[in-house]
């Protein structure tokens, strides 16, 4: 019964999910979310993992005194253990018109990646929040934690809006209404926003989020298949351009695309974020098991 439900409502099939069972989301540093779970916390806790010694101060729990150390040193030391907490993973999907283009479309890969990452997070008992970005935070859902929450994620992903213009700055700024604790935020977009993306992403960083930027570009954006003279119209109505496809023009476009990606990568690097560019014709398993592993989003 559950299988039928997942096939109908979750974007990924059972085989794919089975491959994802061995993966887990990783963060660059431990976060103190205050939610008990499986992940290491920067705070001392009550897990079985020894972390450190510290001097006894009045009021400390006697049960944590290391008597063997006292026997050797005649001083009281407390044994400190690591705390383990859960993480909230926020998956933000660009749903503007520009994401509907490409063959295969960028949005389909974005939804698949979001579903896969949500599944990995939920499997590790992390909390998941999914949101749809257009010129604002168009929709969001706090899916909770645990595997049972994948149905909520699946339902949300299947009902994503697919229209609108892109305003990443405003949409990401809207995230402060949704995220209150430190966590991992993964933005899946083409980042081709006329107004830029830097302000919005910095705002997300202000929310104590570790940010990963997954840029999805269609093959014909990476390699324009244009011969002759063309009138190019923007899918989001941002204007049109006339081009004559000459080697010089194509080369200028390639250089501009490269500069744009380098700018995005530099921005990510400067703010300790993770960046990956994914062509939309890449298979999901290849994305998750190879690309995201390379940039160390999953392990």
């Amino acid at each position: 019964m559950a299988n039928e439900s997942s096939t109908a409502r979750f974007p990924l099939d059972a085989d794919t999910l089975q491959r994802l069972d061995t993966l887990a989301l990783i963060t660059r540093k431990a976060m103190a979310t205050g939610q008990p779970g499986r992940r290491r916390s920067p705070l001392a806790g009550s897990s079985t993992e020894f972390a450190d010694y510290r001097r006894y101060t009045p009021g400390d729990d006697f049960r944590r005194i290391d008597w063997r150390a006292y026997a050797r040193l005649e001083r009281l030391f407390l044994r400190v253990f690591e705390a383990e907490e859960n993480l909230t993973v926020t998956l933000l999907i660009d749903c503007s018109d520009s994401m509907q283009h490409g063959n295969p479309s960028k949005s389909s890969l974005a939804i698949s990646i979001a579903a896969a990452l949500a599944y990995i997070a939920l499997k590790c008992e992390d909390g998941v929040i999914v949101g749809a970005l257009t010129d604002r935070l168009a929709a969001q859902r706090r899916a909770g934690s645990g595997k049972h929450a994948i149905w909520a994620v699946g339902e949300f992903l299947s009902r994503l809006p697919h229209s609108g213009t892109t305003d990443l700055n405003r949409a990401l700024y809207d995230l402060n209404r949704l995220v209150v604790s430190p966590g991992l935020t993964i933005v899946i977009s083409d980042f081709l926003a006329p107004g830029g993306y830097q302000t919005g992403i910095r705002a997300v960083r202000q929310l104590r989020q570790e940010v990963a930027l997954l840029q999805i570009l269609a093959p014909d954006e990476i390699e324009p298949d244009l011969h002759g003279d063309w009138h190019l119209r923007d899918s989001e109505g941002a204007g049109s351009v006339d081009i004559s496809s000459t080697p010089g023009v194509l080369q200028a476009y390639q250089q501009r695309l490269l500069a744009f990606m380098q700018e995005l990568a530099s921005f990510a690097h400067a703010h300790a974020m993770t960046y990956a560019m994914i062509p939309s014709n890449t298979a999901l398993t290849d994305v998750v098991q190879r690309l995201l592993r390379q940039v160390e989003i999953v392990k």
Partner: protein
Amino acid sequence: MSLLIPAALAFSIIIPIILLLYFMRPKRQERVVSSTLLWRQALQDLQASRPWQRLRITPLLLLQVLAAIVIVLVLARPAIFIRSPIGGNAIIILQASASMQATDVPPSRFEEARSLIADLIDGLGPGDHLSIIAMARTPQIVIASSSDKNQLTAALQSAKVTNQDADLEQALSLATSLAAGHTDEQVLVIGDGHVLSPDQVLVVPFPVHYLQVGTDAPNVAVLALASQSIQGHLVALAQIANYSHQQRSIPVELYADGKLVSVQTAVLAAGASGALQWGPLPPTTRFLHARIISQDAMTVDHEAWAIVGGSMHGRVLLVTRGNSFLETALRIQPNIDLLETTPDKYVNAGNFDLTVFDGFVPSNLPAGNIFFIDPPAGFYIFGKSGSEINISHISMGSDSQGLLSQVDLSSIHVLHISHQITPASWMQSVIVAPATPLLIAGEKDNRRMAVLSFNLHDSDLPLQPAFPILIYNLVNWFLPPPVPGNGQIAPDTPVTIQAWPGTDRITIAAPGQQPVTVAPPFPATAFNQTNETGIYYVTQYTRDQQLNGAFAINLFDPLQSRLAPAALLPIAHSTPFDSGGTTVPRALREIWPWIAAFLLLVLCAEWWFFSRNYTMRGVPAGAINRAHTDRGRDKLVLSPVLRNEGAAKYRAATAIATIQNQVLAQYRVIRKRVTRMTKRLKGKRNAKF
């Protein structure tokens, strides 16, 4: 520069049309893309709202405008005035004598001269006319007044070098006739100047320029080859000349009938000549061949041939009761085999070419030629021999056969009695007296007959020098050699074979060639193919025998063998070709062929540029590879990666993957540092405990 068709400049309207096409905005197809952000950034100048766009100076535009300009120029037929070596109506006299075979100028002087003329033909303008005369002993017009370069080139190729000498006077006479009616005629003589020296300096009504070909190359030559009988032994004599500026040892081989006799070396000073002698040679030797072994620029004069004695030997029967004068005179003739008999023993048997009846005439005359001396009174085939009469005065009659050549009749002082001869109508009286002819000669039915009407013993003629000469002339008339003289002829001299009486057919075989029939019909036609030096075999077929004769063609021309080119020609007011006065200053030359060639290059460049653009459009973006510059930075370059490779390979090669790898590497480095620092801090903390 001037334009022959200036109206063609009207075609230059094509240039603004080309520019207009570039001004016009091309019709574009519409396409919806996800974002034009990057296109707008990259292609700022593609924004256009007017039907005319800003003119973009592209290489294709420049090439098209350039091609249009060149096409209009070609149509206008531009021409320039250049200084041409020859122009207008020109006559080139190409020396084709033997010395032009010299190889001091590779491949030969003649080929060098032809090459020079070919260059001049290439430089001919549209209104120029050129005639070419080949100058040998008999100058020939190779081509007359033609402006067609193909015809001129073909005619030039047909010109051949000969073994003759060069007659400049005749060549100029021919040029004068060609130049008749033209005012601006000029003549250019190309050769080494080895021409027959005219009696005086030639004066011609047109300017003559002389283009010298050849160098002062050393040469040796055989100038003469002959045989002689000295004290009964046959010896060969050769004259060798050294035409060089230093003493040379010249080895000379002599062959007798194809067999090497010996090699002798003539040591000659510069410019000197000397003689070599070989002997005794086998008395049966017929042909001699001398050959200089050393190598130099000219080889045609290294060989010489000679015929020993007469080239044809006839069998002669003398029927006499005893006539030592006649017998002696006949025996010294080199070209007869003499047999002698008396009237009592004479029988009309045997096949003799000539039968001499002295004081006796048989009833049945033999076949062949007959020489009657003192025929008894009676009627014979030649006429009537009457009774003996007194002779008072001797004079020359009709001598069309040349029987009295070099014969001095005035030396005959004693001659009183002779038979009174009444000759037949076909006989001619060669020596006559008022009362009777003394020597008559004629030919009938291919038989030659002569009659001497008196007894030699009754005259002092046998005692005179004229007698052996007369006998020599008579024998040569009865038994003529193939060619007059000693059988040695200069090259390219027409040879008319003197037919032996009774000959049906005559053939001549040149060295290394098949025999050529020159007769019938009789008299034999002149044989002209005598350019090659060597022995020419003449075969005469009579009714019952085959007579073999020969003649030799030798150069033997010191003028041609002396290779140093002449500085000047014996012509008044002739000038060297390379002086300033030889050029025609304003010859109009069209230059459209060069412009057309340039146009072809422009079109090729345009095609290349267009095809390059077309090819570049097909280069996949996946073929953007990372290349390391000298500064260590990465930059993108287009590489010819095949588009058929799989997408996975492309991803590895894309610039995006490059950036990913770069970011990843930096991230790993930082992470390693952080890990290392963490471990170090932990280690310090543990050490405190």
